[in-house]
């Protein structure tokens, strides 16, 4: 297992991925604009992908790359469905707070 690539230790990549993940998590919690919340979730997906690709490189095993590829596909499906929900919700009411969409459950 390679512990550093081109002079950069693997820990630095992992720290970068976790920082990006927690920036995305903070955005998903603190923002109330549904579009920005979705973009924060995309940030978290990408941080996880970065971690997968770093470990694939570290062990020279492309299973991590394939997992990252599947994550990209699932993220595309998630974005399409979530944006469709956003459009439907905005079509029904001109003023939307994400907390008001609680009616979605059940």
């Amino acid at each position, binding site marked *: 297992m390679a512990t550093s690539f081109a002079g950069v230790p693997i820990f630095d990549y992992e720290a970068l991925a976790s920082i990006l993940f927690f920036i995305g998590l903070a955005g998903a*919690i603190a923002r109330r604009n549904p579009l920005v919340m979705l973009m924060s979730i995309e940030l978290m997906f990408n941080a996880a992908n970065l971690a997968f690709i770093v470990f694939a490189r570290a062990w020279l095993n492309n299973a991590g790359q394939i997992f990252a590829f599947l994550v990209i596909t699932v993220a595309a499906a998630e974005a399409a469905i979530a944006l469709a929900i956003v459009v439907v919700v905005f079509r029904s009411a001109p003023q939307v707070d994400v907390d008001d969409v609680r009616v979605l459950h059940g």
Partner: protein
Amino acid sequence: MISFWVIAVVLVVSALWTVTARRPIYSVVSLLLNFAALATTYLILHAEFLAVMQMIVYSGAILMLFVFVIALLNSGIAPIVLGRDRVPLAPAAAVALAAVAFIATTIAAAHAPAIVPIASHSPLGEVGRGNVFGSIGDFGQALFLSRLLPFEVTALILMVAVIGVVLLAGDLTPYVPTRRRAERARRALREAILREGK
């Protein structure tokens, strides 16, 4: 090594801008910058096929979807009023705790003896040259020979997503006019018929 730090700074700054931008379109632009920087990181990590996929699928497809939705929502006469941002204290504390725990675990794991899995058959070579680790040939062989089932399940997920989006956003319900709108349409029709008669 310097390139890594430059990219890391770009990634963190653009992620922060995405989360804090006032208008969603600024978030999209900074997210585009973030995705481009990530694709560069993937190239450094010998994941050339995924770098291309990142640019095509994320920057090309998903971000365009966001841009279209923002344009669609802003096309109405009245601007959309969004909810006010607020930071719920308990989840925020939980996230801070999780961040500290996560980074501490990463440091601990960096010093632990590693379990070495079976390496890929392709050698690590220059990016863009031949069937090396992370190239499209290497990636495609692994995807279609040893991991075909997850790939097929992905096709199913995409199919379900397409059907779900059409059911959700496709206008299947009949258009129900309000009384005033119906009256206006009837008046316009009457005037048109009168104009035709002249």
